[in-house]
């Protein structure tokens, strides 16, 4: 499900790490797309698993939940579900706003 805006609250002390984190997410989206086109479910599962671990650690819960969905969909070889996830993830990365506190 797409939203008009996404707001994420991140601990202030992590501010320095966020630009690199966001940069890695955008690269990750490209890698996910490439893996989905190639129907490389192993790679999709690995990437989903990684998103799941990193996302919420930084405060980006949607990265974790999307990651888990991708991991599960890849596990069952569900290409459609993966595609739907990638659309949401793309929208999220384009619109997410970060609030530090």
């Amino acid at each position, binding site marked *: 499900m797409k939203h008009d805006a996404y707001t994420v609250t991140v601990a202030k002390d992590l501010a320095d790490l966020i630009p*690199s*984190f966001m940069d890695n997410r955008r690269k990750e989206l490209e890698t996910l797309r490439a893996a989905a086109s190639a129907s490389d479910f192993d790679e999709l599962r690995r990437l989903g*698993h*990684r998103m799941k*671990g990193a996302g919420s*650690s930084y405060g980006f819960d949607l990265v974790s939940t999307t990651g888990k969905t991708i991991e599960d969909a890849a596990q069952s070889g569900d290409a459609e579900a993966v595609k739907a996830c990638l659309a949401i993830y793309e929208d999220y990365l384009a619109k997410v706003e970060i609030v530090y506190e």
Partner: protein
Amino acid sequence: MSKTVARQAPTEVSTAAPAFRVLIVDDDPDMLGFLAHMLRGEGMDAETAADGTEGIAMVQAAAPDLVLLDVMMPGVTGFDVCKRLKSDEATAMIPIVLVTSLEDSGSRVQGIEAGADDFLSKPVKREELIARVKTLRRLHETRRELESGRLAGEIQNREAIRSAFSRYVSPQLAERIIADAGEEGELFSSRAQRVNVVALFADLRGFTRITESTEVGSVVDMLNEYFTILTDAAYHHDATIFNMAGDSLLVGFNVPFPQEDATRRAFLTAQEMVSRFAPVARRWKDNYGLATGVGIGICMGEAILANVGSPHYTSYTIIGNPVNTAARLMQTAPANEVLMCGTVYEEIQSLLPAEAVEPRGEVTLRGKQEPIAVYALRIPVTE
């Protein structure tokens, strides 16, 4: 893959104690960055490795105080790293925290089997991370304190042994006895042992004249000078000193540890005793008009090695025929002469200058029934 090694000194910590060092192993650079940031915030040193192979190499190069280890890594997994470190004696004691997915209970079972000390759920909650690491740091510090206390006790014990036994044996031999003592600390067997020994007795010719003609204070100084030379020579060739009485000294070779070249060592010791005492004898002659010199007897054979005495006083001693024979030989040896039994002579014959050796034939020594072959060796000294 890039490797991030960053050590950041905590700003508020001013003590000299080394920082707690944590190695983080994870193939995700974002997790590495996040975990390292959290630990540094707690004043710890955080180093990072981007895969299992690099992690193992870093632990082996410089053992950290704790390892935070991701499980799902391509190639060498976290389980592999854990098993590897726990099976190596050098790294087995380093606590390992496996970082696993929250819902993955199978991983935890596998982690326990691999030897992991604790687990941390991913995504990581900073409170949980800090709490777990702090607990392990406390454990680590307690263990380190206990260990340094135990080591201090052990060192104290060894120093006591060293100072006690270095009176009898050379420092090298004392080291070896301590090393061989084992954890029970049993140094010399309390039971008597039959051993092959090379016994060397030395005494000072002309000593009776010294005690009669010289004042007491000087006698003690002179004896100390004489014994210093003799014990130095004995230690120099790893002899064990068994007895010092009046002006005579009994040392043994091949005890308490076997010495392949025991007779050679005895010969070299005798030679060193005589030649190093010679300048002292010259000085005494000039100063006091005394004719002195070292006379030596050497014999080998089976003897009994034991702690002999009462509960109040014991002496580490060799008893038996070779010791008695060496004493008798010493008594008849004039200054600068070494008298030895045939068995000793046969073993060291090749080392001796033929012109300095004089066979004395079969001699029946005082208190002995059987005659033995005796050889005399003159040690040349400049008069």
